């Protein structure tokens, strides 16, 4: 089978499993809902203030929620020795990685679509700048979170305390992407500045780290 074929098959399998159990999406949804409520109590913002802090709030909530789901991605495969089977099969390793990444990307995008109305309601958000720019930022930013997150989840699955290891590895590397997402979102919401630089930075970040992940995933998968 070609890389694309394996990717597709693996992705369809993951999506079907998620559709039946809805484990990842439910835990992410509930988690980010809790973050929204807790932040609202902690800061008690007015509409004007919340437009300023919303960028940070939204992305911190999604980052934490994504970690919850990312921790689960490889656990299932490890339990049933799927990774070992994959290692001995002739299927290209990057196909597996791409399938997992696209799967996680779709889960987080669904989460964002479901959460967006809640943010608008709870924080009385109204965008001053053009909304389509928010879409671009969300897509690029989610990919940035998910591509590194999937890779580092694959790394941390082989460590002793895997649940805590993922955020420890992911957060320092993600800092520039998070800064870009937060600042771009805030610039659009307040309409005070142009998010162009941040969108470019996110694109560069996505390209650099997607390339690195694809370059290094095979070594990580085959690490003894």
């Amino acid at each position, binding site marked *: 089978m070609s890389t694309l074929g394996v990717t597709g098959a693996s992705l369809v399998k993951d999506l079907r499993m998620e559709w039946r159990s809805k484990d990842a999406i439910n835990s992410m949804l509930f988690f980010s809902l809790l973050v929204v409520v807790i932040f609202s109590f902690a800061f008690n913002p007015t509409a004007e203030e919340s437009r300023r802090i919303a960028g940070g709030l939204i992305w911190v909530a999604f980052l934490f929620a994504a970690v919850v789901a990312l921790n689960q991605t490889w656990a299932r495969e490890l339990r049933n020795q799927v990774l070992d089977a994959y290692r001995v099969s002739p299927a290209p390793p990057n196909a597996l990685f791409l399938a997992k990444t696209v799967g996680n990307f779709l889960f987080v995008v669904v989460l964002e679509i479901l959460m967006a109305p809640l943010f608008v309601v709870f924080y009385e958000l109204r965008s001053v700048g053009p909304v389509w720019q928010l879409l671009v930022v969300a897509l690029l930013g989610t990919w940035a979170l998910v591509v*590194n997150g999937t*890779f*580092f989840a694959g*790394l*941390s699955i*082989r*460590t*002793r*305390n895997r649940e805590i*290891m993922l955020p*420890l*590895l992911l957060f*320092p*590397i993600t*800092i*520039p992407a998070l*800064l*870009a997402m937060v*600042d771009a979102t805030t610039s659009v919401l307040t309409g005070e*500045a142009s998010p162009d*630089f*941040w969108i470019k*930075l996110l694109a*560069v*970040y996505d390209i*650099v*780290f997607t390339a*690195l992940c694809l370059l*290094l995933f095979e*070594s*990580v998968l*085959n*690490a*003894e």
Partner: protein
Amino acid sequence: MKKLTLISVPITVALLAYTSYLALIVAPTEQTMGDVQRIFYYHVPSGWVAGLCFFINFVASALYLWKRSPASDALAAASAEVGVVFCAVLLITGPLWARPVWGIWWTWDARLTTTLVLWLIYVSYLVLRRFAAGGQTQVLAAAFAIFGFADVPIVYMSIRWFRTQHPSPVMGGGENSGLAPAMLHVFLINLVAFTVLGILFVWLRYQLQMQEQALESAHAQLALKGVSR
């Protein structure tokens, strides 16, 4: 090997004592900042050595992924740890200098923030090394090292932009725009001394790493012998 260690440690410490004397007593007092500026002679060389160590870590990690030699992994582990130590000194002496000169302990400007993120990245590298299981450690650590190194320029770019967009806090003073010759002289000697210290640390730590590896395989062999007997 052992003898070389015994000689090089006291020589390096003596060299550092001498350069400290130069920095504290011989170098002229800076006009605007006064004597506090003498932190400069420790601060900047520490930063340089930290950067050098992280670069060595990157090269050694890439080399490990390519050739899989245990020596390059040991070098990567050694240089990352030494780099974190030097970076920690950089991060501690920085605020101690900023407080009397700028009036604040910390400012989120590009260079400070990048240094902090750099430090965080390599601390997670060390945590990963500690918690990874057995034989996988080397590959996982090497892969993460590549990610960390690639992240640094992006961090710097992003924070520079972040800070130029927002009003910057009390800045000014600080950097060496044209160092006086007497100061430059002392600074260069300090730079050399700290580089020697950094190389000594990496070298010792490298030896330690190799010894630990040898010990581990000796343990494994002994256990194997016990089983087969």
